[in-house]
C-alpha cells in the first residue's frame, strides 16, 4: 500500500469558518505543472484577521497552494489550474482578472529575505510607487516599518542599502515592504526558515501582532511555530488537504491518523 492510498478523499474539517468571516475561499483547486499534478481538489476557507498555518512534509503542495492564491504560479511555464479562489467575492482565476491587481492586494513574503539592492526607504516605498501613490510617502514608509517592528532599528539609516541589514532585519524589511502596499492578506512562505532562533522569535511575535490589521496565511515546516503563531491549521499531504481546523484541535486531537503521525513528528 502506498502513502497516497492512505489519504482519505474528503478533507476532515473541525469547526468550519463561517462564510461572513471568510477572507479567501479556495474551492476544489487543482493544479498541474505540465504533467505533474501538484494539487488535488483543495478546498479551504481562510478567515479574516486570523493566522492560518499550512503544514505538511516538503513537496506536499503547501507552497504551491500559497502561491496560487496571489497567482504567483502564473509565472511558471506550463501551469494549469482548475477550481476557484475567491477574494472579496471575486473569482481570482476569472478570465478578466489581471494577476497584477491580485498581487497588489494579496502581499507575499518569501522564504529567503529578498530585499532589492536599493535603500531601506526605497525598498518599502517600492509597492506604493508601483501604484503611483501621491500622498505622504515618508509617513507611509514609517508606518510600514513600525508595523514590521523595524522602525527603531533603521530609522537613522533609511538611505542605506537594504542588503546591509542582518538576515532577520532583512526579512522584517520584506514584511514592511509587503505591508506598505496596504494588502489585506499577507502570504508568508516559510518566512523564518533561513533565520536564527532569535530572529525567528522576533518575526513570530510580529506575525501575531499583524493579524490585528491583516489576514495572514503562513507556510511552515516547523510544528512549534505553527502551534505558536496560528489560529487555524491546515495539514496537507501529497497535494491533498487532509485535515483543517483550529490549531489547538489539530495539534491535540487530530481526527486523521495521518495528521496525528505528522504533528507528533513520526514522519516528515
Amino acid at each position, binding site marked *: 500500500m502506498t502513502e497516497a492510498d492512505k489519504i482519505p478523499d474528503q478533507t476532515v474539517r473541525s469547526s468550519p469558518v463561517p462564510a461572513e468571516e471568510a477572507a479567501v475561499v479556495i474551492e476544489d483547486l487543482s493544479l498541474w505543472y505540465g504533467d505533474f499534478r501538484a494539487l488535488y481538489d483543495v478546498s479551504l476557507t481562510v478567515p479574516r484577521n486570523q493566522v492560518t498555518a499550512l503544514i505538511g512534509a516538503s513537496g506536499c503542495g503547501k507552497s504551491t497552494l500559497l502561491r496560487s492564491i*496571489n497567482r*504567483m504560479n502564473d*509565472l511558471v511555464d506550463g501551469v494549469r489550474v482548475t477550481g476557484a479562489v475567491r477574494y472579496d467575492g471575486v473569482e481570482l482565476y476569472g478570465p478578466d482578472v489581471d494577476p*497584477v*491587481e*491580485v*498581487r*497588489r*492586494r494579496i*502581499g*507575499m513574503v*518569501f522564504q*529567503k529575505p*529578498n*530585499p*532589492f*539592492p*536599493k535603500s531601506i526607504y526605497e525598498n518599502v516605498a*517600492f*509597492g506604493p*510607487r*508601483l*501604484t503611483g501613490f501621491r500622498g505622504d510617502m515618508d509617513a507611509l514608509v514609517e508606518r510600514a516599518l513600525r508595523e514590521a517592528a523595524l522602525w527603531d532599528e533603521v530609522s537613522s539609516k533609511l538611505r542605506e542599502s537594504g542588503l546591509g541589514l542582518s538576515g532577520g532585519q532583512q526579512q522584517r524589511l*520584506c514584511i514592511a*515592504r*509587503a505591508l506598505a*502596499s496596504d494588502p489585506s492578506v499577507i502570504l508568508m512562505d516559510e518566512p523564518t526558515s533561513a533565520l536564527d532562533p532569535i530572529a525567528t522569535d522576533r518575526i513570530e511575535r510580529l506575525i501575531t501582532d499583524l493579524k490585528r490589521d491583516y489576514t495572514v496565511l503562513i507556510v511552515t515546516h516547523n510544528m512549534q511555530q505553527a502551534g505558536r503563531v496560528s489560529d487555524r491549521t491546515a495539514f496537507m499531504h501529497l497535494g491533498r488537504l487532509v485535515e483543517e481546523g483550529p490549531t489547538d484541535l489539530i495539534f491535540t486531537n487530530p481526527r486523521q491518523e495521518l495528521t496525528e503521525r505528522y504533528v507528533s513528528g513520526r514522519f516528515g
Partner: protein
Amino acid sequence: MRLRAAARARERVFGGVLLALACLSVLTTVGVVAVLVFETTAFFSDPAVSLREFFTGRQWTPLFADQRFGILPLLTGTLMVTGIALIVGVPLGLMSAVYLSEFAAARRRRRVTSVLELLAGIPTVVLGYFALLFVTPLLQRFVPDLDLFNPLSAGLVMAFMILPTVSSISTDAMQAVPGALRQAAYGMGATKIQLIWRVVLPASLSGIVASVILAFSRAVGETMIVTLAAGQRPLFTLDPRETIATMTSFIVQAASGDQPAGSLAARSLYAVAATLFAITLVLNLVSQIVVRRFRERYE
C-alpha cells in the same frame, strides 16, 4: 629507477613549454608597450614637437611640408564618429537586450543571438564599403551638403557594429538578476514593465555600463569603417557632414604612405597610436572593474 627520473624530466619539460607559451601573450603586450613608448618618446624629443602643442594644437599636418602636430582634430573626429555610433547603437543594443532577456522565449533568443553574432562577424571593411556606397548616397538625399566622406554615415553603420557587443553583455547582466528579486517585485503586484524599469534595469546597471564602455572602446579603435567612409582629412570641427579624420584612419593613411622610417611624420604615427592605445586600455580596465563589481554584488 632511471625510467622514473626520465618521466619526471619529461613532465617538467611539458609544464615548462606550456608556461612559455602562456608567457608569449605577455610578451605581446610588452612588445606593444615598448614599441609605442620608444617611438613616442623619440617623437616628442624632436625639437619641432611639443607636448603642449600635441594636446592643444588644432592642426594636424604631419604629412605636409608645413608640419603641425596638434592631435585635437583627430580626437574630435574620433569623438564625433564614436559619439554618433554610441548615441544610436547603445539604445538599440539595450532595447534588444531587454527583448532578449525579458520577452523572447529561449528558442527565439538563441536564434536572434546568432543573427546578432552574424552582424558582429561581418568584416569591418565590408561595413565601410556599405557606409560609403549605400548609406552615404541614401543620406545625401535627406541631408544637404553631406560630403562623400562623412562621420555621419560611418557612425550610423558603426552603431550596428557595436550593437551586438552592447546587446550580448547587457543581456547577460539582465539574466543574472536573481529570480528572487523578480519574484519579490511580481509578488508586490509589479507589472512586467515596472519590473523591467524598477528592478531589472537598476540591478543590471553595472553590466550595462560595462557593455557601453566596451562598445565605446571598440568604436574608438575601429579602423576600416572610418577610413573608408569618414575620410582622411584632419579637420577641427564638430559638423558631422564634413570630411574628417580619426586617429585610426590617420594611422592607416600614414602607414600605407611612403614615410621613411624614423622620419618625424612616421613617428607621429606612433604618438597617435599611443594615444589610441592609452584611451582603449583605460576604457577596458574601467569596464573590467565595473563587471567585477557587479559579480560581487549578488554573491
